[in-house]
């Protein structure tokens, strides 16, 4: 009985997964909605950040328009889109900001909510988070 239940559970998990899965032949960039999609994600993300007292202070002296453009370019390249990110490295961009793990987590939290609010497909959402996660080491290098 136990094994059968386990099998059924895994089967249900599999089915629920494949039902929400889009064609995997397209690039992550396309699955995020291309240029317009990434623009909306970044806009929502920055609105979430602006509303987040845990981290909004880090952006007190930031040119938000410039940050938004740079972020769109970065996500475009990261998701295999037709862009080349021309900004500084993640280590350089974040050095000596006094970031904590807590602030990094808050940022990820805000991005995840933006992706969910934009109804980005679960696979594309997790794929993007998965490509961003390893950047932690660079972002936190010189704090």
């Amino acid at each position: 009985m136990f094994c059968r239940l386990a099998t059924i559970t895994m089967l249900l998990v599999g089915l629920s997964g494949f039902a929400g899965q889009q064609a995997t032949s397209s690039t992550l960039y396309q699955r995020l909605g291309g240029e317009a999609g990434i623009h909306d994600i970044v806009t929502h993300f920055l609105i979430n950040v602006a509303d987040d007292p845990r981290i909004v202070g880090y952006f007190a002296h930031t040119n938000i328009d410039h940050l938004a453009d740079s972020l769109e370019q970065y996500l475009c390249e990261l998701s295999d889109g037709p862009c080349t990110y021309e900004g500084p490295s993640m280590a350089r961009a974040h050095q000596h900001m006094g970031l904590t793990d807590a602030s990094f987590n808050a940022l990820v939290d805000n991005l995840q909510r933006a992706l969910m609010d934009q109804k980005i497909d679960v696979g594309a959402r997790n794929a993007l988070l998965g490509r961003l996660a390893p950047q932690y080491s660079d972002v936190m290098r010189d704090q």
Partner: protein
Amino acid sequence: MTSCQKIWVLLAGMCWLAATSPALAGSRLAGTGGVMAIEGASGGGLSPWGVLAGTASDIDIGVTVGATRADVDDYHLVVSGMAVNFYDRLELSLANQRLALDTLGGHQAQDIYGAKLRLFGDVLYRPWGIWSLGVQHKQLVEGRELARAVGARNTSGNDVYLAGSKLFFDAVAGRNLLVNTTLRSTTANQGGLLGFGGDRNDHRELMVESSVGLFLNPDWLVGVEYRQKPDNLSFAREDGWRDVYVAWLINKHVSLTGALLDLGSIAGIERQRGGYLSLQLSL
């Protein structure tokens, strides 16, 4: 003072500590602390994982309390526990387990004092995941005579474990997969509820515990767990424990876990199967 009273006194103390510390509660993402396992440490239902309790991050202190009930054919287990996570570096936990021998009659109860130190890593951001070293001091407080009568050598013991956890993004059908492995050095019989060491074997042994879970979305985790156990007593065979679980992370502060258990043979009664329900609150 009973174990239960001790837990409440400790809880009150920890709440005061948490309330007076500058940063309260966690900023780690929901689900990255697992749930409270039956021995009080954070993990799955049956095993401690590499992650530390709740969502406390490097500037936070977090307090987690949990209540669990497991019902199998001839026994039921009630667990109350709490864990405090200091800056996502050190977790201290306390649990009281009370096993009712529904068919045989009587009770076994033990207190478990746990500490888990995060050695390195992070479950989400580091390629090798998160690795922690833990100890659990277990003391039988009821049923010591029975433990001795069935051949146990001691009524208290210490488990030492190394646990690693890693989340793989977009791993199965676009979902994130959480993988945990624990190596435990122990002499405990049925987790300690039937004492420690035995007439057949009185030495420490290294046991493997493992689980995989799939996040259907950020709020729902389903998975399977397995925990290997020693077989020290000649009066009755001891099997590994396994389960299929579903955890619902209602929000960052509340989670509910249900599982179907297969605990094998316990104290001579074969095929102990049933269900498990655990409620957890985190500050």
